[in-house]
């Protein structure tokens, strides 16, 4: 790798330097959460790095075993607190596959719209905070400005800016309000222009180039060995994207490209994610164009709450409502693994049902956790400043890592 910036141990300029062990974090803004890095430094060079995780372990997976299926949804949202819609989709999709429930087309489109908005939101948080680490402070304001617009859209449709519990088993909990489509379309049309502004600021900025080009290079083969997915793998040149590989929601009907990098350094990671934001905005536009009319949640009284209007008129609906709220629905014994393309890579949900109204096991394959394994390969033999850049470009969300 000719472009790589790394100084192997044997070639270090000053071999007398002692190895010094330094703790970075757990409370350090550059670790993007509560991550502790135990770093062995030889002067400015990183010789070994050991990430220590577990500071925000919340036991959510365990708590889920104690809740009926619909109550699990607000729990799993809170793992990776930047990509909550993805977690909901992973869990709801898994349960829908267990109980073999087909969701109506409108719900599929609505879910896709919210997932892609959430992907843009997640990438904006990444870009803002990472650029901030590299000294580009205005990026934070710019990215959070657009992020706020996305959060406004979330609030308008779902009632909450974060942790919306909007996806339910069978579809989405309520239809989008009047005016949402227009507002969302306006945003999706504006977003590529905004991305152009970010690129104007960063793409050819000398400081940014110096900090990102050739730093944190990991080869595609090594990433595959470690099980890394998502933008990190695509930046190394592997066009692996579950949205294309698997058939879920309405992705097969949509037309979008997969941006890939060539070298696999931090600059490629930046470019790939920025290009993904533009693609996501285009997906949102396509979904809004094709959004079909019809029900937004499946009409299956066994699993789905009856509409509110029926509660005062139909005794049967009221009984279903009581039963679903108090006990929930039983799921026949079985297990399923359902994975989707999250903003950080393959987000999978495993659900084991034992015939009761509560899942026997809920497990998430969180991409942040797996991707963090590649951090040692990125940082060792590089400079400590590049380690910070690599960590930002890795984009781990510690809520997802620790769960």
């Amino acid at each position: 790798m000719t472009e790589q910036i790394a100084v192997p141990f044997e070639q270090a300029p000053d071999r007398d330097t002692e190895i010094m062990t330094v703790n970075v974090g757990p409370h350090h803004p550059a670790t993007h959460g509560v991550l502790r890095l135990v770093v062995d430094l030889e002067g400015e060079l990183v010789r070994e790095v050991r990430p220590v995780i577990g500071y925000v372990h919340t036991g959510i997976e365990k708590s889920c075993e104690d809740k009926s299926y619909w109550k699990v949804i607000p729990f799993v949202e809170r793992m990776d607190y930047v990509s909550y819609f993805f977690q909901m989709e992973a869990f709801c999709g898994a349960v829908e596959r267990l109980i073999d429930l087909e969701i109506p087309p409108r719900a599929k489109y609505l879910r896709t719209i919210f997932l892609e908005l959430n992907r843009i939101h997640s990438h904006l948080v990444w870009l803002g905070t990472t650029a901030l680490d590299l000294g580009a402070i205005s990026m934070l304001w710019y990215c959070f400005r657009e992020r706020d617009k996305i959060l406004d859209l979330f609030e308008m449709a779902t009632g909450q800016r974060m942790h919306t519990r909007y996806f339910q088993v069978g579809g989405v909990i309520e239809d989008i309000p009047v005016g949402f489509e227009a507002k969302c379309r306006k945003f999706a049309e504006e977003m590529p222009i905004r991305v152009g502004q970010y690129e104007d600021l960063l793409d050819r900025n000398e400081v940014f180039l110096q900090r990102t080009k050739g730093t944190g290079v990991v080869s595609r083969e090594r990433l595959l060995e470690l099980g890394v997915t998502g933008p990190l793998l695509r930046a190394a040149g592997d066009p692996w994207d579950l949205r294309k590989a698997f058939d879920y929601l309405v992705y097969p009907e949509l037309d979008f490209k997969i941006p890939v990098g060539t070298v696999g350094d931090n600059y490629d990671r930046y470019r790939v994610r920025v290009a993904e934001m533009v693609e996501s905005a285009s997906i949102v536009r396509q979904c809004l164009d094709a959004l079909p009319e019809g029900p937004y949640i499946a009409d299956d009284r066994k699993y789905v709450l009856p509409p509110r209007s029926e509660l005062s008129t139909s005794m049967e609906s009221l009984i279903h409502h009581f039963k679903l709220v108090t006990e929930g629905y039983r799921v026949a014994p079985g297990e399923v693994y359902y994975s989707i393309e999250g903003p950080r890579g393959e987000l999978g949900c495993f659900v084991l049902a034992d015939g009761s109204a509560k899942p026997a096991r809920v497990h998430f394959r969180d991409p942040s956790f797996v991707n963090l394994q590649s951090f040692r390969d990125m940082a060792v033999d590089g400079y400590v400043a590049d380690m910070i850049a690599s960590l930002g470009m890795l984009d781990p969300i510690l809520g997802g890592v620790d769960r």
Partner: protein
Amino acid sequence: MSFDPKSASYLDSIEVVEVQRGPKPGGVGGAYRAFGETLRGLKTTMARLIEGPMTIEYPEEKTPVYPRFRGRHKLHKFEDTGLEKCVGCSLCAAACPADCIRVVAAENIPGDRVSAGERYAAVYEINLSRCIFCGYCEIACPFDAITMGHDYEMADYDRRDLIFTKEMLLAEPVERTPLKSEGE
């Protein structure tokens, strides 16, 4: 659904674009970019001036919320009779994922009715320091007795003050949060 990433069918089904690499840092180009590109960046920032501020002066000016916004809960009474809508059925407590609602029901005494149903909630408490504002209680209540209001300023100095009793939930909040219209 099984797919081999290297298989020709996968690679045929996708459209891949390679991202640009940008210039090589350092050298003469670097010296130029240190000025030229910085100025171009400055142009981008300056052009944003005409867009005006995106922020609001928060404590003086409150963020308006959308009608669907889920803030502090409210309990409701019937407007004509003044009786409480809540009948103490505990469905909301059963639905709450955070287990933060406590309902103790009691029988209505004829002549001194509290609610419209047979029973009423003698104790109704929501521990707002545990509440995750999911709104499941609102969905669960078959009598529209509890709804999510629009108030979001709930910070307090003592956790005990965050346990809201029935009286507090029935009372109208002092300061109303401004509301956005659906189309805004």
